[in-house]
């Protein structure tokens, strides 16, 4: 079959499939998905306006996070430590931490904003999330004490283990 005929055949098949769709989805504008659209991509796509400092983050952490994650993020029986971590070569059961494992800074912003505090998820303001990210990066010596996190600076934070991964099934992507 020629390329042209193949293209025509595919186009026909595609339009036939469209015609067969029951078409019962309700249209919504992209803007109206905003309240649910909390996905942050590694290149920073989706990061909201706002900013936060390490010092602001320390206050917020003490008030809203330390009851589970311990003073300064050192951990407690109720919550994982958020500071430190053994080298990954210590063993396959090494606890994965922000400092020793996480590959992308955006993951931290995304997870705090979507899931924390555990009992009141999605109650933090975007400024608070930026401040907490700044605080936790600084506690782990990944950024300096005076750095400010915002949509521009956060994706540029270089995580120590960024290059520590092997894609298991590249042919599936």
């Amino acid at each position, binding site marked *: 079959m020629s390329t042209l005929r193949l293209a025509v055949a595919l186009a026909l098949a595609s339009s036939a499939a469209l015609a067969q769709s029951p078409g019962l989805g309700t*249209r919504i504008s992209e803007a109206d998905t905003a309240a649910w659209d909390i996905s942050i991509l590694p*290149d920073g796509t989706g990061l909201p306006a706002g900013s936060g400092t390490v010092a602001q983050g320390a206050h917020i952490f003490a008030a809203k996070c330390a009851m589970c994650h311990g003073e300064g993020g050192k951990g407690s029986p109720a919550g994982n430590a958020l500071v430190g971590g053994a080298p990954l070569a210590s063993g*396959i059961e090494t606890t994965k931490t922000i400092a020793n*494992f*996480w590959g992308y800074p955006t*993951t931290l912003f995304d997870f705090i904003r979507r899931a924390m505090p555990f009992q009141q998820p999605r109650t933090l303001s975007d400024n608070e999330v930026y401040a907490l990210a700044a605080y936790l990066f600084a506690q782990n010596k990944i950024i300096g004490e005076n750095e400010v996190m915002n949509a521009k600076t956060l994706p540029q934070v270089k995580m120590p283990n960024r290059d520590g991964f*092997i894609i298991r099934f590249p042919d599936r*992507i």
Partner: protein
Amino acid sequence: MDKFEVVAGNGLLHRRAFLRGGSAFAAAVTGYALARSATAAPLADAPWSREMGAAMPPVQAPSRFEKHVVRTLSNPNNELRNSHARTPHQMLQGTITPASLHFTINHSGVPDIDPAQHKLAIHGMVRQPLVFTAESLSRYPMVSRMGFVECGGNSAPMFSNEPIQATAQALHGLVSSSEWTGVPLAVLLDEAGVDPKAKWFVAEGADSLALSRSIPLKKGLDDAMVALYQNGERLMPGNGYPMRLLLPGYEGNMNVKFLRRIKLVDQPAMSYYESRTYSQILPGGKAYRFYFVQEVKSFITHPSFGHALRGQGYYEISGVAYSGNGRIAKVLVSADGGKSWGEAALQEPVLPKAFTRFRMPWRWDGRPVVLQSRAWDEAGNVQPLRAEFVAQRGETKKPPNPLAFPNQHYNSLTSWAVDGNGEIKHVYA
């Protein structure tokens, strides 16, 4: 006395010994004779045969004599952490996990979702963002398929440097298999009109963590489904009611439950669960990321830890085999710790990315044995032997808490040692 062909050490019999009638296979060179059974007592009516039975409930539950057949819970008091409920494989047969016994992992409890108010949004890199409800999806052409779902952390206790003495439920209870019915995701994506530049989609749940995973669009357009039904009834709350993503053969956590949002994107989001929890550390310190496929695996459920053999003679060895790469092609069973192997019968139907039950006739002579199974899938993948698996993936320095997850994606062998008294232990062989 019939004779049966012996195919491997310690009394493994030919897989068709009983399927076509034993005497047809009596012409064995080296045959075991099965002893005649003992004499039974004279028959008499039991009380339940002499009175009218109980009223039928609207939803029936198992017999009161089966109350021990339950899932085991890691967090029974719903403390502020994740919870696991494990399937009791050593007490089940066949290939379908009852919905009430399907494994469940929830990272922040089970949400109580009103299906009339639940919505599924498809947006991002699409021509027209759309919202679906359970009611609108129920009008779409549906498909049903058998499919296993397995947590990436299933069998994590097998990474222990010493064998943990525990049941198949405790070791492998985070996999189950069901018939799933729902709408092909490709139909919904087609209706929204996917931008050719989109390469991934982020799936997100309506649970309090808004659990999210990035999935290659390739899988979404292949055999992914928005599932509404499980074994004919609506999804159980713990399995994603009122709708979940089903990605046949892919890591359980990617099969996002309580599905409320699909966003088409051009890159993976590197969400917490994909870039942390289910990325696994390898010996030496590198880590695997995007471990989508649950690879070929099998384990013996009967007999297994917690059972006891009551006297020598005939038993059926059986278990489950499955592969995220397709159908099971072959299962071998050993009763001598891997020195010799016999091919097990595969119970039909053998379906892709679903449980296959294997069966192996066996005559136990009362001496100690070590039982193992090893599966191959139709793509030619084979379950790795433990020595080679541990060399590549490592093991712990000391035995972990059996409820902990020292690592992910174990698919090597499981070995059960039967001693001369018929007691069963978990061993590495």
